[in-house]
């Protein structure tokens, strides 16, 4: 096992803050859950949760909302991590959505996200009666997230009302809920993409290999590279699969996740590449560009 680098004061401060938030969420709510999306931010969140309750285990399960369109490598990674850490992993897919044949290709990204992610998440939270859910979202990802609280109150039906957010002063979080209300908690609110990668490197946190460049079968679509992860992606007329050295900056449903051409095959190379980058990480996500305020709308409906 490689020797850990000592954390910079900056990362140490972010780590302590996140641990404090995780403990707060665990102590203040009846039945919390950690939303595990398998990506790098989730990986950091999970790592912090393991630290926060050491020598005990996190007093909450992991929940993965499975759209059934995630990369195969993600699912494999998810199962092995949960097993290694000895944590309870709940997987939920929207069965009604599947029965209706909703998928990212025929239904379009907006409807697919609405049914298989947003609705599925609400179903799962209600099914298990979770009153608080930790997520790995960061304020630097997107401008409506920049306005969201660390403890983000959700009314009945999991809706977010950006104009009625509780003021969040000092670290005095208002964790009071009525029946039917819930809280989304974002321990990584104050982290940036740089911080996440620096921390992954410093703490040697495992991540899905898709983040590293490798030769992969891809097609060119909407100005980005889409990977052919299985047989379900139909080729448009004139499209021919190619093999390219690519990697992913963010991971989601494979038909909606754009890859970038890259040769960065190690953490150090990823970090160097990112520092030279001129575009934000969400550029590769096809779901964000639907409309100007699309993230705010999705969040109001209960999206993470």
């Amino acid at each position: 096992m490689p020797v850990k680098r000592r954390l910079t004061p900056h990362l140490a401060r972010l780590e302590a803050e996140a641990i404090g938030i995780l403990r707060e969420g665990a102590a203040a709510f009846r039945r919390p859950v950690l939303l595990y999306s398998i990506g790098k931010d989730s990986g950091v969140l999970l790592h912090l949760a393991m630290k926060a309750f050491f020598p005990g285990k996190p007093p909450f399960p992991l929940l993965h909302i499975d759209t059934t369109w995630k990369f195969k490598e993600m699912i494999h990674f998810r199962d092995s991590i949960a097993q290694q850490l000895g944590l309870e992993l709940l997987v939920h897919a929207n069965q009604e959505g599947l029965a209706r044949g909703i998928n990212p290709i025929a239904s379009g990204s907006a409807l697919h996200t609405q049914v298989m992610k947003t609705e599925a998440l609400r179903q799962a939270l209600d099914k298990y009666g979770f009153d608080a859910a930790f997520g790995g979202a960061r304020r630097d990802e997107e401008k409506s997230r920049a306005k969201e609280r660390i403890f983000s109150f959700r009314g009945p039906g999991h809706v977010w009302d950006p104009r009625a957010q509780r003021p969040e002063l000092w670290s005095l979080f208002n964790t009071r809920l009525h029946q039917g209300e819930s809280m989304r908690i974002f321990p990584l609110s104050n982290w940036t993409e740089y911080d996440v990668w620096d921390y992954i490197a410093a703490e040697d946190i495992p991540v899905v290999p898709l983040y590293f460049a490798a030769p992969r079968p891809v097609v060119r679509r909407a100005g980005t590279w889409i990977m052919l992860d299985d047989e379900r992606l139909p080729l448009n007329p004139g499209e021919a699969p190619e093999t390219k050295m690519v990697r992913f900056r963010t991971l989601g449903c494979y038909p909606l996740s754009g890859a970038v051409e890259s040769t960065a095959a190690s953490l150090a190379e990823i970090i160097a590449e990112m520092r030279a980058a001129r575009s934000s990480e969400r550029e590769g996500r096809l779901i964000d560009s639907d409309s100007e305020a699309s993230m705010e709308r999705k969040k109001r409906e209960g999206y993470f």
Partner: protein
Amino acid sequence: MSAQRDLLRFITCGSVDDGKSTLIGRLLHECGLIFDDTLAALSRDSRRHGTTGADIDFALLLDGLEAERQQGITIDVAYRYFATSRRSFIVADTPGHEQYTRNMATGASTASLAIILIDASKGLLPQSKRHSLICSLLGIRHLVLAVNKMDLISFDADRYAAIIDTYKDFAEKLNFTDVTAIPLSARMGDNVTSASGNMAWYHGPSLLQHLEEIDVQSDGTGQPFRFPVQWVNRPDANFRGYAGTVVSGHVKTGQNIRVASSGRNAKVQRIVTADGDLAEANAGQAVTLTLDEEIDIARGDLLVAPEAPPEVSDQFAADILWMGAEPMLPGRDYLLRISQDWTQARVTSLRHGIDVNTGDHVAARTLQMNDLGLCHLSTLKPVALDKYSENRAIGAFILVDRFTHETVAAGMIRHALRRASNIHRADFTIDRTARAERNGQRPLLLWFTGLSGSGKSTIANLVEQALFTAGRHCYSLDGDNLRHGLCRDLGFTAADRVENIRRAGEVAKLMMDAGLIVLASFISPFRADRQMLRELVGAEDFVEIHVDAPIETCITRDPKGLYAKAKAGLIPNFTGLGSPYEPPENPDIHLHTGDSSAEACAAQVLAALRQRGIAC
């Protein structure tokens, strides 16, 4: 790449016109933090919603909510992150409008430096004073006075100096340790990240240089040890640790610590982290402590240095910034959170309001949203506290509405009030139980609530006659009668109504201690106050009777001619007309006086009393 760098949290204050967003936008842009795709989206947005013509409108970068972009104003705090090779920064971009003062305070609560923007062409405006005052109150000690739009006054050194002088006169009475003035032009970039060629007369640092260099000493290492227990970690029978974050000072293994509330001491055995045990933990570190002795410690307890303990008190004075839509009412109960502890609290008195624009004391009976005031509070149980000026983490609290769960106030403790420890309750040998036994009855409070004219006093009178005839000892308290004496000084504002009910409740409680059954007839329109009574006298001895009649019926009856006067505009705040009545959700007894006679209603009450073991 990963140089040792510290964090600076700061806020920017100013209205849209002062160029605040342009300044932040430029800082982010020049630090390479605005990506090409973000910039492309921004220039698209600028053409649609922007107010800067062909230029990129940086305000749109920060105003992330739809409502903000449509209205062209900042409503909520936005947090932005950037770093230079020397330091990393979190900037809270806060709204300037007075109606969003609470959101500005939210940003200020975690900041150690504030940039107050001033438009050089306009000079010092009242809002700059308001922002300075709130920053000072929230404990920010380092201030940058950014005199922007110097290009509009031809980079004139004299006009700049005049603005600075006026500001420094004003800021003298505030608690800033340093005020640094910088002349700049955010639009043109003068003195933002590098020295300006247009102002040779200015020899100070650029804004970014100042932010990189200033020593804010916000880490709290020099203060006494404080450790609020967040979570008791008991994975198995062999381990019992107290998880939390050191909020000030430091702790070493072998050191004595004290539980502030109980005064019990123990020694720190281990400082546990997932990366191995530590010999010492400093402010800001999240750790788990184990102790050499099993003493009673729960979430919410504060572990402290025994040689420098905090005050433990149930009464204290604090500056309050009110944030709730409903006004603050002295006498009403709220939930209070201080560090990791929750309890119930009440504002016992509002000493004075504070004018947010001048800092002057003003007379006040309530606080409205965004108002400031100095209050005395009392809590249900003693809490550990420090002065906010000495320790922000232990001297700050929030108040939460007990019913809506909204955060309604931010509080900063000035000092504990000694009265709690000096007034001791006198204990007499003959107690409530003894008196109740002598009277052969269980003391109760029958609380008749309802609109004026609903029949409260009439029914209470009938019930009292029946109880008296049956040999019970009882007494009637009536709202109108009390207002002729004990409550003569009170009016009918919401604040006075709360106080009126509180006094009635206290009197009823004394009478119950004397062994009496008390019948009280008060409109008592607010649910929260009736809940307060229930808790004051004990739920098992409180009988809430809703005397319910439709308002139309009450208006027709109008036994005192009050509705007629109210309708003529002679009585403001009349319950049911100008002021709301909140009906009980689950009254112990529900009387419908529109359909039943007063005698039938009285019989209904007596039947319910017999069920509770009262012979009548």
